[in-house]
């Protein structure tokens, strides 16, 4: 740096050029992410790559499900590259990072001081990873890419009030970014903190091997970080165990086909809204907490207006964390969402009415009307071996305002 003038000029120029290049790339990434998430591209299959780029989500998914989900490959690549270059993702790619930098700039102009809070993000990461080992990644939903993806649910389901919640949260973050510049990226963002962790731990491990003679001091920062993370993970695992115990009493909920076991599902779900956006019939909605507070904002199915099509697997193709695993069209009939229950107090057949809607619309031919000599009327009977709970019967049922045939969720294991 302390070389002659012309050279300084040229290096300053090259730094400036690099900054420009970086800005262009970041803006491109932001635009690309927005395009992927908006319902403008055909079939929206690209949306999966936005939250799936998160290394935090990818590693948590692996720990929680103990299986590798192909969709998480992108996140693993991000993680590997972080070994080479610290926080490269934040600097070059992250759309949330760009937004936050923007508002931080504004904040600094308004003379707001950069925040010096504790490293909240690392705590989130440690607790989440610890929980993930027990299948309960506690705070996975704080992932910035998932939050960013969630914003765009408002574009596809503008009329559903709840689909605006991610957008609202993001707005709050932006305002916070003005008031406390750099708070999010530097101190809270779990994806950033996770990258810090990867870099620091890798440096620490490398130092262990590099200096065989002189062991690193117990006070070295790498050692401290490793210890704290381990401690945090133990606490996280404890919390996860407690949460699982509470969660296990929960009644099953109507989740998209391919959703994993309920307790893990509510924690592993990033609330990114991809499945809701992917559903061509808009039958996936945000859970308002009807199925327990832990599942708030997770996807639930509603069959009031449409049903889960026999040949559609789109929601299972876009889940970044493996909370919903990939379902092949052939497997679809065997993936149970729930089973219909008939309320004979309101079923038209109990009034001898000329209705055959549920039987007609059942794609799996699972419903029969059985005549009873005792009541001298018909009752719909469902063959559970054929039915997968797709909800076609509920959609077709003509009773108002409550449908006489409704899908009750089944326990998933």
């Amino acid at each position, binding site marked *: 740096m302390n070389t002659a003038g012309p050279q300084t000029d040229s290096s300053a120029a090259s730094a400036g050029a690099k900054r420009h290049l970086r800005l262009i790339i970041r803006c491109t990434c932001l635009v690309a992410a927005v395009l992927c998430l908006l319902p403008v591209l055909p079939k929206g299959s690209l949306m999966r790559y936005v939250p799936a780029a998160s290394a935090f989500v990818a590693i948590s998914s692996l720990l929680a499900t103990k299986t590798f989900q192909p969709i998480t490959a992108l996140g693993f690549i991000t993680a590997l590259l972080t070994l080479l270059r610290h926080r490269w993702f934040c600097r070059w790619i992250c759309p949330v990072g760009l937004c936050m930098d923007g508002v931080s700039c504004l904040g600094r102009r308004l003379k707001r001081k950069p925040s010096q809070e504790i490293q909240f993000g690392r705590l989130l990461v440690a607790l989440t990873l610890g929980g993930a080992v027990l299948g309960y990644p506690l705070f996975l939903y704080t992932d910035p890419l998932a939050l960013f993806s969630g914003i765009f649910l408002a574009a596809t389901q503008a009329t559903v009030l709840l689909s605006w919640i991610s957008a609202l949260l993001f707005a709050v973050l932006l305002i916070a970014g003005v008031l406390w510049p750099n708070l999010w990226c530097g101190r809270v963002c779990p994806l950033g903190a996770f990258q810090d962790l990867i870099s620091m731990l890798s440096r620490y491990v490398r130092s262990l091997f590099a200096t065989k003679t002189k062991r690193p001091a117990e006070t070295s920062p790498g050692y401290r970080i490793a210890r704290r993370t381990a401690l945090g993970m133990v606490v996280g695992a404890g919390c996860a165990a407690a949460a699982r115990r509470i969660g296990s009493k929960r009644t099953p909920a109507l989740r998209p086909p391919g959703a994993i076991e309920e307790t893990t599902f509510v924690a592993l779900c990033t609330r990114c809204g991809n499945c809701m956006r992917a559903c061509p019939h808009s039958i996936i909605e945000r859970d308002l907490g009807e199925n327990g507070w832990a599942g708030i904002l997770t996807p639930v199915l509603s069959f009031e207006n449409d049903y889960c099509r026999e040949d559609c697997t789109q929601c299972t193709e876009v889940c970044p964390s493996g909370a919903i695993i990939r379902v092949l069209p052939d497997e679809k009939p065997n993936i149970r969402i729930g089973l219909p229950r008939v309320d004979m107090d309101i079923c038209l057949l109990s009034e*001898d*009415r000329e209705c055959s809607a549920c039987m007609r619309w059942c794609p799996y031919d699972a419903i029969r009307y059985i005549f009873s000599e005792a009541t001298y*009327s018909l009752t719909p009977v469902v063959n559970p071996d054929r039915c997968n709970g797709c909800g076609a019967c509920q959609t077709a049922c003509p009773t108002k305002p409550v449908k006489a045939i409704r899908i009750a969720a089944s326990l998933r294991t």
Partner: protein
Amino acid sequence: MNDRITRRDYLRMLGISGLAIGTGSFDPSRALARGVGESGGFQSSVIARDKVQPNRANPVLIDGEVIQPQRKLQVFAETDVLVVGGGSAGIVAAIAAKRAGAKVTVVERYGHFGGLWTGGLVLVILGHIVKGPKQVCQGIGEEIMRRLDKMDGAIINRRTGSNPTVDAEAVKYLMVEMIEQENIDVFLHCWGVDAIMQDGAVKGAVFESKSGRQAILAKVVIDATGDGDIFAAAGAEFEHRSHNIGLVSRVGNLDKIDKSKAPPDAKPKHLGSATPVKGVNWVNLRGPMVDGLDVATLTRMEMNHRKFIWNNIRKTRSIPGYERLYLVETAPQLGVRITRVLDGLNTVRLDHLKNATKFPDVIGVGGASNAEHGEWQIPYGALVPEKIDNVLAAGRCISAELRMADLVRLIPNCFVTGHAAGVAAAVAVRDRCSPRDADVSKIQKILRQQEAYLG
């Protein structure tokens, strides 16, 4: 004749004849002494004396088997279009064919028109409303509705989006009026039993009545029997299905029920829904899923259902407040929903409904009961048998897959297929071709002229 009316005859005319007969002062020889056509001692007269049934060819027992010998049938009438079955589909078909210029004859096994709609007491008209709500059953079906509107106590709930309920007697009356206005030949109490065939084509039908076994020759036959009796006899391929067989009834004095007197847990069932007659409900019955072509089954259904209906009324009457409930009538015609379904050139399918498939040979549009889905087009091919010529199906026996049969058979959809079959038959007659080769664009043009809705 006047001079022959005795005092006793006079008294009889006044309606006190029973007494006179009861006293044994009746002389049969006096009646016999009179000539043919005279009304003698009874409100009856001799048409032919010492008569032996002509044209007999009794089945004979040969080696324990009953053999029907060959016999020549009297041709009772010749016509362009013969409609067998005077139900909702048959009547509309007859009117449509007549208006399209054909000479039309209708043969009906019962003494009234309307089939299940009237004789079966199926009083509520379902299945003509699609999303919107919009009514898709137009044409002659809608004309019938409008005429019912103008009659006193004939129809209720005639708002777009709701399902109207009719009075069966009003419908029976109206159909007589319309048949007469159109100058259509009809024969009631005639049971169509066979198809007359030549080279794989239907040339008419044979029917049984009190007049014996007779033939009607026709250029095109429309099978509107609901059960496909004629196309089956002609050898057309069909699917034989079972369905719920019920017996509809009407109950009265519902306006004199005092529900407040009934215990709170009393939930009387099978009380039906309102009709144009105050205090009278029609009560549907789904019944078990059985074979409507099996006469032993039909018999069992009639008897079981009758017992159930009576006992249910008795039971309901024992609930405090329901004492005045009574059974007005059970339907003269058993509620057979589906039996034979034609294997047509085309078939009405649920996928067509789901995908809103459009057919180049569309001849009508079907609907739903509660506007729960969109329009579904009915192709002409669903009325035409795969192989046999000169016969068309109309009403609940047209070609439809299992899942769609329950929509196809609804009354307005029977109007729609009846309307199309009538026009198609007339076009085939006019163009001297088989209905299979009839010009579909002509059929569609006339249907539109007759205000049918084709989407």
